[in-house]
């Protein structure tokens, strides 16, 4: 080490004693004084102040103790209701285009070219149908949901949500800024985990990372929306279906928020004890959303990005599914073996083997859970007349048809509810796990963040199933 450098440090140290203790405050004070003086000289207020301050009035309403939460719920429900009711027609249209028209056409082209059945199977019945399914099921709700969500964000509403939730996080022993990283997690948990960098205390940051998975992400919204539509929405008269489904999805999302608080609280009382830090949360001014730009960015950045990711994972998954359900050992396909093996365990939990297999297949991306479930269900229940038969993804023109199919596959309302619960509380996707590892640099905490939710999920759906069976006999 250079001795000159040492000398500098030493004299700085000595001089610090010389100057006295109020040094730091003095510097900050001078800084603020000068900033304020310079600002004062430059700023003028032409004319009178406006009588009515719209921003402040809105703020008073959306962050009010009484109206804050109800307004938040109302907005969320409205967004989902618009998504669910709006997505129906375009989804049906995409089905008939991609699956009724293009798929048979491709089949006939392949047949005319004399391409072997297994190539045709892998490419058209595996890869193409999986992809077409993902596009048809995910594109319409995303194309409605993301622009709406982005508009809320652009308008400046999200920090108000954080403001409303802040004191609850503090009570749970977590950092108030966790409200922001959680909100980010509603988009993507990997992004949510990265955004915890705004939290400076390592203890609180770990809590935020571990609990981020409870924020329902993009990959899981479509599952929630579909299952809610076909299982919950059909319990009530048709005109109420959309609203009730939307409320079901909102409840699941809120359950996620509740779990975030509970787990944060438990962690901060046990393995991650410590002081709660304070911070300033600035409420940005409301800005009129730039509608066109918002549409553009939410379609490009969010909708297409998420869709692309789903497609990228659906292609190989379709191939794997087709192969595993067409490769027979002793007359039984590999997929069937696996499903039968997991079935007893699944039924005990109020799910079934098909769902568990789907969640294993979907570790890389939650987006493909539903297509996988439907395909395996068709294969396992031997339903005919839907699609082209065993191991082939198929067309379903409406939610009701999906319901019929799943009921034939032995599904009940309990299966639907438990699937929604398990979709909320299970291990993070592989991208998020990898991100957690990169951010924490710790195998231990990555393991905790991965296994804790999946174990909690098993416990929650197990008890839901037991209680359900107790009451329904």
């Amino acid at each position: 080490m250079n001795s000159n450098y040492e000398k500098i440090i030493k004299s700085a140290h000595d001089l610090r004693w010389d100057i006295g203790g109020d040094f730091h405050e003095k510097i900050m004070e001078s800084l603020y004084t000068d900033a304020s003086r310079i600002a004062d000289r430059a700023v003028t207020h032409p004319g009178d102040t406006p009588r009515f301050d719209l921003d402040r009035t809105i703020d008073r309403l959306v962050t009010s103790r009484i109206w804050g939460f109800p307004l938040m719920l109302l907005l969320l429900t409205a967004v989902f209701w618009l998504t669910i009711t709006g997505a129906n027609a375009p989804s049906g249209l995409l089905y008939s285009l991609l699956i009724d028209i293009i798929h048979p056409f491709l089949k006939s082209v392949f047949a005319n070219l004399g391409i072997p059945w297994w190539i045709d199977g892998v490419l058209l019945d595996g890869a193409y149908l999986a992809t077409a399914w993902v596009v048809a099921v995910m594109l319409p709700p995303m194309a409605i949901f993301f622009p709406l969500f982005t508009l809320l964000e652009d308008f400046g509403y999200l920090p108000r949500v954080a403001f409303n939730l802040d004191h609850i996080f503090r009570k749970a022993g977590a950092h108030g800024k966790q409200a922001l990283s959680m909100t980010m997690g509603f988009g993507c948990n990997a992004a949510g985990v990265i955004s915890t960098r705004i939290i400076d205390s390592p203890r609180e940051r770990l809590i935020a990372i571990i609990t981020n998975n409870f924020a329902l992400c993009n990959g899981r919204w479509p599952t929630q929306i579909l299952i809610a539509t076909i299982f919950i929405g059909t319990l009530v008269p048709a005109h109420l279906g959309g609203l009730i489904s939307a409320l079901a999805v909102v409840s699941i999302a809120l359950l996620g928020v509740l779990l975030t608080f509970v787990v944060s609280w438990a962690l901060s009382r046990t393995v991650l004890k410590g002081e709660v830090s304070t911070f300033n949360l600035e409420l940005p001014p409301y800005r009129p959303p730039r509608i066109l730009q918002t549409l553009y960015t939410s379609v490009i950045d969010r909708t297409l990005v998420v869709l692309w990711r789903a497609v990228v994972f659906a292609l190989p998954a379709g191939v794997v599914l087709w192969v595993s359900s067409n490769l027979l050992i002793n007359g039984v396909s590999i997929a069937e073996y696996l499903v039968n093996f997991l079935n007893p365990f699944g039924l005990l939990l109020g799910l079934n083997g098909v769902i568990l297999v789907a969640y294993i297949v979907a570790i890389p991306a939650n987006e493909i859970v539903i297509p996988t479930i439907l395909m395996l269900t068709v294969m396992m229940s031997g339903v005919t007349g839907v699609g082209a038969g065993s191991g082939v993804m198929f067309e379903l023109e409406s939610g009701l048809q999906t319901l019929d199919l799943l009921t034939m596959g032995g599904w009940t309302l309990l299966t639907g509810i438990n699937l929604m619960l398990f979709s909320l509380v299970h291990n993070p996707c592989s991208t998020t796990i990898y991100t957690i590892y990169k951010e924490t640099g710790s195998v231990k905490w990555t393991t905790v963040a991965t296994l804790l939710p999946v174990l909690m999920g098993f416990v929650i759906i197990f008890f839901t199933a037991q209680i359900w069976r107790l009451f329904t006999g």
Partner: protein
Amino acid sequence: MKKNNQVEIIESQDQAGCATCPVHHAANLKKLGVDMGNWDFVVALAGNPNTGKSTVFNALTGLRQHTGNWPGKTVTRAEGGFDYGENRYKLVDLPGTYSLLATSLDEEIARDFILFGQPDVTVVVVDATRLERNLNLVLQVLEITHRVVICLNLVDEAERHNIAVDHRRLARDLGVPVVPTIARYDEGLEDLLAAISEVASGETQAAPYHVKYNHPKLDQAVTQLVKQIEESFPDVPNARWVALRLLDGDEKIIEAVKNGDLGELTYNVEEMDGLGVDTVALKSGFSL
């Protein structure tokens, strides 16, 4: 004005995350790799959270990344580039911070870049509706470097709130160029680019304002330390600021003096992250 929409994205050490990131497939992205040598000037973009830094960044680089109306959107650096006049500029979007005292990771990233990355120009984006609070950061940046351009953003909003900012007076008081802009609607960016290029080329010589401490003992101590620092680190342009940080007991700066990093003009900026940066994924709010 000639603008090239060329953008590079900092690659994380392990590409597994980014390679599948669909943002890479967008037509306007052209990865140039991290090659500082190709750029004539490096421009850093600093500012308080939610002042529109990312909007300015997008407007200058042609990137259409998602910008959000909430503080804390950018917690790592994003990089992009543009051509202006004869020169190529690399633009680095720093996390929004209220100060440069490095009490949290985002503040540290911002400060380390301005200090060690030694950008040719540091643009501080300032919210015209909250000038006083924003000036706290500006004054701290001016302590570190005099190659500063102030981008007085959101003047339309200030007007809406019945606030007028005299940017000429501000420029005189601060001793650096001040350019009023409305980045959301691309207004004033031409002037901003001109100011950046003038500071970068040295046409504009700034005489930045330094905070007055009115503390004789402190002034004495600073003078003494500055002398020592300048002897050991002749290349350090901001000895006064280093002295103040040393007196304040800033661990990071003490460390930098101890191992001589302070003298390294070519501080390896990429190493500074060490976090694996998936900036684009983060900024767009979505998955990898």
